[in-house]
């Protein structure tokens, strides 16, 4: 551990007290787990209105909804220097439209409001956004770079919310020049653990396609997203960065790698009506993905790489990893234990004088009396 703190630049060690929003979401939990392993981080505080879904050792969970006055009190009381906002809903199937809007737009504004003020301790905000920001249209460029905006107004409510949230973030960045604001626009995420529109689709025995279209798609591995959030917390200069693995695959290529059957059941005309019908049959494809199934989306990921980040997986490797997991899933079924948050247990483990910390970190334990 000591070796790694030496490696870190001065900027790196300036991040000491972190607030993770959306702790109960997949990304919040994964990020908090990752941050716990950094010795130089003194405090990790997670807020959400639901209990955490992952086992955490020293992260403190505070149950709070998006109320900026409460958030601000937490931020000031804990002298938070870095806020990492992971709570954006980027899949319209994960939450009803009203809740998604509440979370994405109002929630973002509240969190930003909690970091505002000349005497605020916050000096860095990392915001996880989505490449749904760019949409998917016929006249798109083959690779979106960060300074591009979508050629047409958003088609779905979720895309509109993401645009609004990003607008709020950039406004915050302009008004608070002393805070370093980093926005990460994540491409569609794949991985064994994460639940996204594409992991759901690729789990089906036959993968739906729009007849006559073979869109170019780009994914990013779940571990790379967590690494990227970590990287943004410690190293990255402020600004907007795309996050997508190397390589753009055609959907047919993806389906072939996963070993599934392509099923071109969506008609090229009246696709929206057809997906509505499929949704009733339990074949759920979110609205913002329908256009991607037609026109696809390519992302230029070079700017984030230029900050020193290296991806663990290419898009192809990401798909292969998922396919390996899907093949193993029936064998491994039931071996994974679900974690449930028990407040009393967690509090005992963190605060009781009877808990011997040296047991958890045997390498830190000093041989007493010798």
């Amino acid at each position, binding site marked *: 551990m000591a070796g790694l703190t030496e490696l870190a630049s001065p900027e790196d060690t300036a991040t000491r007290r972190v607030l993770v929003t959306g702790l109960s979401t997949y990304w919040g939990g994964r990020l908090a787990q990752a941050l716990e392993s950094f010795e130089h981080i003194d405090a990790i505080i997670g807020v959400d209105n639901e209990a955490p879904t992952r086992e955490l050792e020293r992260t403190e969970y505070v149950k709070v909804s998006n109320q900026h006055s409460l958030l601000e009190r937490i931020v000031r009381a804990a002298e938070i220097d870095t806020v990492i906002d992971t709570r954006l809903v980027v899949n319209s199937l994960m939450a009803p439209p009203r809740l998604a809007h509440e979370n994405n737009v109002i929630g973002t504004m509240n969190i930003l409001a909690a970091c505002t003020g000349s005497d605020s301790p916050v000096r860095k905000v990392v915001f996880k956004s989505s490449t749904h920001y760019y949409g998917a249209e*016929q006249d798109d*460029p083959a690779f979106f770079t960060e300074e591009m905006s979508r050629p047409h107004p958003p088609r779905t409510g979720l895309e509109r919310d993401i645009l609004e949230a990003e607008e709020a973030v950039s406004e915050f960045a302009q008004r608070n020049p002393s805070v370093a604001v980093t926005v990460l626009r994540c491409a569609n995420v794949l991985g064994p653990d994460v639940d996204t529109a594409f992991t759901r689709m690729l789990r089906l025995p036959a993968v739906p396609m729009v007849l006559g279209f073979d869109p170019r798609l780009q994914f990013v591995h779940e571990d790379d997203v967590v*690494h990227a959030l970590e990287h943004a917390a410690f190293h990255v200069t402020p600004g907007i960065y795309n996050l997508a693995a*190397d390589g753009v695959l055609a959907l047919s290529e993806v389906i072939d790698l996963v070993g599934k059957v392509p099923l071109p059941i969506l008609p090229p005309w009246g696709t929206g009506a057809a997906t509505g019908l499929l949704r009733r049959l339990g074949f759920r494809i979110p609205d913002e993905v329908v256009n991607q199934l037609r*026109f696809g989306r390519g992302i230029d990921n070079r700017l984030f790489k230029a900050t020193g980040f290296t991806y663990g997986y290419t898009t192809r490797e990401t798909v292969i990893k998922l396919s390996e997991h899907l093949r193993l899933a029936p064998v491994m079924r039931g071996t994974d234990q679900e974690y449930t948050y028990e407040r009393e247990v967690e509090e005992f483990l963190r605060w009781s004088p009877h808990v011997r910390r040296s047991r958890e970190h045997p390498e830190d334990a000093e041989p007493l009396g010798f």
Partner: protein
Amino acid sequence: MADEHRTSLAGPVVPAEDAGEAGGPEQLPERRPAEVMRELLPAIEPERRLNDWGRSERVEGFMDRTLVEFFYRYWFRVEVEGIENVPSESGALLVSNHAGALPPDAAMIGKAIREEHPTPRPLYITVEHFFKGYPGFSMLIPKTGCVAAHPANVHRLLYDERQLVLVFPEGRKGTEKLYRDRYRLRRFGRGGFVEAAMRAEAQLVPTCVVGAEESAPIFGHMNAMKRLTGLLYFPITPTFPWLGPFGMLGYLPAKFKIRFLEPIDTVELGGAEAAEDKALVQTLSQEIRAQIQESLHEMLARRKSVWLG
């Protein structure tokens, strides 16, 4: 289980000097020099059959060996002049006249470079984004090396990937013109292609194609059918619509001649900085148009027969 998902420290640790460049928090992200960005392009994965543009070696190879081979060698009997004007490395933008209901000129220019050039290179063909929205076409078009004519696409191909790109500045206006207007170049848009080449500091190679006009002449347009089918245009040719969709491939055996003119070095003209100069861009665009038109006239004056050359 949870431990497995914990991200290790070993992965994305930045070397200290790299992070040192970060600068104060007030600074906006400093764009790295474009050359550095070029090196950060994704590596090619040899296991893949498609590249990142969706180009498929397999589909392209199959077309090249069958349909394109037949038309190139036996049907149009293509003759090539000035192949040495096509650079063998670095990015270059080929600018050509455009004709024919379903224009055969792009495929023939691509084949000519594969066949005649000392170092055969793939050619990327810019097409209207209309094709991306048309079922069926949208699957085939990128697999054969076509990309949408978006300035960002052209820049990435020319500058970052140093590829050969073919552009038809006349666009749709060139292909929908009637037989009686053959070999009269239409307006060259707003000179966007010159701007793209200058920004990318790539060479411009004016290219002339004789024969495409006669191979697929258009005698008229059916606007009602155009609206009904949603196509870009609905032409009347010797074989279309009489023979159905395949009538589009019913080319007449006109003799093809392709001539590549002297390349224009955009670096000498001021390169990327001069791309902002609208007057220079327009002048250069007009000049290239005049060059192609003049060369076409000369080729036509020497042609004894439409079919035999």
